[in-house]
């Protein structure tokens, strides 16, 4: 798939076109969203506003009632290794050690065993868990488990990375550490990221653009160009936090 007809910049990495999803009532209603290559976009909104549903539709795990999603201009018809997903919690295979969980992701690329191991070792070190490869998920803390989950998703070398409240189950301190970690990892392995969160602060610290959802659609977009790492005490972030909060209420 070479972009012969149009320059890469002109085509969004992810294009959500008029997506509607009904479970009885409409959860998503003709939603449009575009995410550029290597952009980090967060989705914030109340519980039940359809953030996770939208993420699952983009991942190909849930079928839209109407509309379509394009990744690199190709319609999404199901889940696959091009669309890496980090789930909220406990999605590691409990019978596999940390390193083998990551190898599971690498294997989807068709790498041989040695290459899988090498890639997994490298990613394990990248997420700061060198030496923990032989631990089972049950022997790791919640934060460590999510580091492994991020490494596993990166191991499949996806076109896009979808993260569904990956730090939602973590305590506040671990959560802040993980946000910094994610940015560090993202700076070495640049990906297009769509990140769902409840936390406005988390969205402001992480993303290039905060998308506010409500009523089955997008109700506001807030681009940020503040350089990273961002101070959580930055007055510009505080002002933006206030505006988004007003919007959500």
């Amino acid at each position, binding site marked *: 798939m070479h972009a012969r007809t149009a320059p890469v910049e002109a085509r969004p990495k992810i294009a959500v076109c008029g997506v509607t999803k009904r479970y009885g009532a409409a959860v998503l209603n003709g939603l449009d969203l575009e995410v550029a290559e290597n952009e980090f976009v967060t989705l914030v909104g109340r519980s039940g506003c359809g953030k996770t549903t939208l993420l699952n539709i983009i991942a*190909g*795990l849930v079928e839209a009632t109407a509309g379509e999603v394009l990744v690199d201009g190709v319609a999404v018809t199901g889940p696959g290794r091009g669309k890496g997903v980090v789930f909220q919690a406990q999605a590691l*295979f409990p*019978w596999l050690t940390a390193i083998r969980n990551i190898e*599971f992701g690498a294997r989807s690329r068709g790498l041989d065993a040695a290459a899988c191991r090498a890639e997994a070792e490298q990613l394990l070190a990248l997420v700061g868990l060198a030496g923990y490869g032989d631990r089972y998920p*049950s022997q790791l803390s919640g934060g460590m488990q999510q580091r492994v989950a991020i490494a596993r998703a990166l191991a499949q070398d996806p076109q896009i990375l979808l993260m569904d409240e990956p730090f939602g189950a973590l305590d506040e301190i671990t959560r802040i550490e993980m946000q910094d970690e994610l940015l560090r990892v993202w700076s070495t392995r640049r990906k297009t990221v769509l990140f769902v969160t409840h936390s406005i602060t988390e969205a402001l610290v992480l993303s290039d653009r905060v998308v506010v959802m409500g009523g089955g659609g997008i109700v506001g977009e807030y681009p940020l160009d503040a350089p990273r790492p961002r101070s959580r005490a930055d007055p510009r972030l505080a002002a933006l936090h206030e505006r988004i909060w007003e919007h959500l209420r």
Partner: protein
Amino acid sequence: MRWVERPWFQGAACVVVLLALWEGASALGWLKPFQFPPPSRIAAASWEMVVAGFPTGTRIGQHALVTLQRIFTGFALATVVAIPLGLLIGRVPALDQLTLPIVTFARSVATLSLLPLALLWFGLGETSKVMLIAYACFWVMLTNAIAAAKYVDPVLIRAARTMDARGPALFFRVILPAATPRLLAGARVAIGIGFMVIVGAEMIATVAGLGALIMEARTFYRTDVSIVGMIALGVLGFAFTAGLGWLERVLLPWHRGLAEVRR
């Protein structure tokens, strides 16, 4: 800690005291030896079972071996069919709904109530005994295999699908390992049930096996020998439960204490 305070010592002391009371009550004539043979008689009968056997020539080891063979043949037959079938039913909701009434009914039928039919269908030989064990084990293994496949955490399957695992790869790399703890738990229960059913199954048309020994000794007023048979069954059952527990720890090092965390 002094050895007197150790739990194993206190447990052992309790058993010794009870046995001494029992022996004393027997010696004083409070307990009839035919109904409650004293520990010394049981010990003597145990030795007799080791060297001479009952009926003479059939030693305790042979009885145990015959019984174990029946239990394991039945268990193996049941498992080989029940695991693949149960995993299939558990992954196909339509099949699950279709088979639920049959499964619920069949597992509720007390196995030993099938003894007359089993004798009619499979004759007086080994087959009827093995088939009864197989029947009892089958429904336990089947219901566990169905539940094992059905309750695989959906997020694990979703995660696997995002990594291109589908079809046989999804089954062998995700569903089967996720189901294994429950399959082993089912095997443990099934073996236990096998040990219960075998006594009844061996009541008829055989003199070999621990169940037969227990019944046969009773008709000769050898209550002491019956009790030796009971003890042997208890010891074997205990050993196999412990063995399966060990196997579980070896096969599922990741699973320790996880059951409580997950659901």
